[in-house]
């Protein structure tokens, strides 16, 4: 039989990737997010809390493709899923949310400022648009060092209206820096829809206006995101050029802890709209796709469900039994 060399496609590459692990990690982030409001109402978590339910495809489809550490990830205040996908253990995330000394930021950061620099996760950010100028600096450092690494910077549709985002885009486009921008387009900036906030809603056009090429992606289809991201990242490593992904997705829950009851929803979204959005749950869609390819059985999925549930319970127990930071750590880390 003749040896035939088959051209390796992006699809094969992805199928070679550990898709079961990606599926399991999506389950983990979803279960973690589902647990946090409960813990908030038990007064174990305080402050603000922003869940990622429905948006998992944006991290599942990109972060597993990165070389961590080496590459860098920047995110928003809606950052629990980014930390998990970068490899931060769930127990360190939950401990941080509960303000314990064992949290990934020693209890100093909280929900909006999870960080895990050893794994390349430079953190969430409480300021809308905040990470985008920072990503310009990270990208500059990577080019300065002639590195093949990239910086992935997540930010939302609302952030695209911040001025600093455009300053950074101009400079990243001008200097040609290896930053992959991921616009988490869930159609709402808190309670304000795109249509009510933004004159020009073609985000790819806006990136291109600054010299950054890009494309639009369906974020509810993880395999699709993986394919697009694989191509983009490979090209970026070779060329060092920036790229922009407008990833459309749905945020299944409200903006944050103060916006998650039916009454609040009716101020800017209807229950019917939420129900419609939930029909394309990225976890269910991935399950279906993997199942159809023979890569995930019902038994596998059930086993993972049980494992993940146990992992979250264990993580919660760890966090709840962890001490708060010692009082004399109040003045620590103000300076290096």
């Amino acid at each position: 039989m003749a040896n035939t060399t088959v051209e390796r496609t992006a699809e094969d590459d992805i199928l070679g990737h550990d898709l079961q692990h990606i599926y399991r990690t999506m389950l983990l982030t979803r279960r973690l997010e589902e647990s946090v409001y409960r813990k908030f109402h038990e007064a174990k978590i305080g402050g603000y809390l922003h869940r990622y339910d429905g948006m998992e495809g944006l991290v599942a489809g990109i972060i597993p493709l990165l070389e961590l550490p080496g590459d860098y990830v920047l995110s928003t205040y809606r950052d629990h899923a980014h930390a998990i996908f970068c490899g931060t253990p769930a127990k360190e995330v939950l401990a941080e949310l509960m303000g314990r000394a064992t949290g990934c930021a020693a209890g100093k950061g909280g929900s909006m400022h999870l960080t895990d620099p050893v794994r390349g996760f430079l953190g969430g950010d409480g300021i809308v648009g905040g990470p985008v100028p920072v990503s310009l600096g990270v990208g500059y450092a990577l080019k300065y060092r002639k590195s093949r690494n990239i910086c992935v910077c997540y930010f939302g549709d609302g952030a695209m209206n911040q001025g600093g985002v455009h300053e950074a885009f101009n400079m990243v486009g001008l200097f040609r820096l290896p930053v992959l921008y991921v616009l988490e387009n869930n159609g709402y900036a808190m309670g304000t829809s795109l249509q009510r906030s933004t004159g020009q809603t073609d985000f790819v056009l806006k990136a291109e206006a600054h010299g950054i090429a890009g494309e639009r992606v369906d974020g509810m289809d993880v395999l699709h995101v993986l394919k697009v991201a694989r191509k983009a990242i490979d090209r970026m490593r070779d060329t060092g050029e920036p790229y922009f992904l407008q990833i459309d997705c749905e945020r299944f829950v409200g903006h944050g802890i103060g916006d998650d009851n039916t009454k609040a929803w009716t101020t800017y979204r209807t229950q019917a709209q939420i129900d419609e959005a939930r029909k394309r749950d990225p976890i269910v869609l991935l399950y279906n796709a993997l199942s159809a390819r023979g890569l995930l059985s019902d038994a596998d999925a059930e086993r993972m469900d049980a494992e993940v549930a146990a992992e979250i319970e264990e993580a919660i127990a760890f966090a709840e039994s962890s001490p708060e930071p010692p009082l004399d750590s109040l003045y620590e880390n103000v300076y290096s």
Partner: protein
Amino acid sequence: MATMRYQQALRLAMTEEMERDPDVFLCGEEVGQYQGTYRVTEGMLDKFGPRRVVDTPISEIGIAGMATGSAMVGLRPVAEFMTWSFALEAMDQLVNHAAKITYMSGGRIRCPVVFRGPAGVGTQLSAQHSQSMESWYAHTPGFKVAMPATATDAKGLLKTAIRDDNPVIFMEHAGLYGLQGDVPDDPEYLVPFGKAAVRRAGVHCTLVSYSRGVHLCLKAAERLAAEGIDCEVIDLRTLVPLDMDTVLESVRKTHHAVAVHEEWRNVGFAAELSARIHEQAFDDLDAPVLRVAGADVPMPYAKNLERAAIPTDNDVIAAVKKTLA
């Protein structure tokens, strides 16, 4: 040792640090091809190339983000604001990002960045170009704030700033750029942060200041000496960390203090000095601490009005006499 201008001393500091450490780079508006709007970075683009001397667009948020982000992953940027008035555009990146990332990350992410540029009033640049806001930065936990008054300190403090692993707000004074001074050749000449300098020893009254205010105090002290009033002049050098020990030691000797700065009086840094001296040396004071500062007005354009808004040695002399009365 060489005699050179304050502005040349700054350039020497940056040049030496860039030669010593390949991770140090400069960025800012007109720092490269234009040779710097005050010629501080003159010749540096030719010497180090565009990778290490980066001309940026007019984007202070971008400049601050570029510096903050690159520092977070291990480079040592020196970012210039053309004047500290323009840094206001970048306040979120400065305060909410550069100053806080080390604390918010539980100490796991460093931010070894220097933000530098001229502050200073007095040349009819009018309101929007005439503020420094050093008390805002000194107020913010996470920053160090250095404000050299001499050419010697311009070199020594800037080198220390570049080697510091924390975000440093480095405020030069446009009116001091031409000031000559003796600057050591030694590339390891560093002026430490948190160590004030007694510029003039005296016994009757302590004058505390920084940046150009120090020269105002020295001039006042010289004139007062002719009347038999002997002032001690302290140059803080850094507002954060603040060397209160030197100030208190002086106050325990003189029992009188006047705090001086060009920036606005209301909620200015002199208020902090006054509070601390009262808290920590009340029993050593024979009179309340007085302040000499800029008028609480947006800086007017007309030459006579501007002159009236900026403290003079007459104002310092009046304050000293009042406190001694």
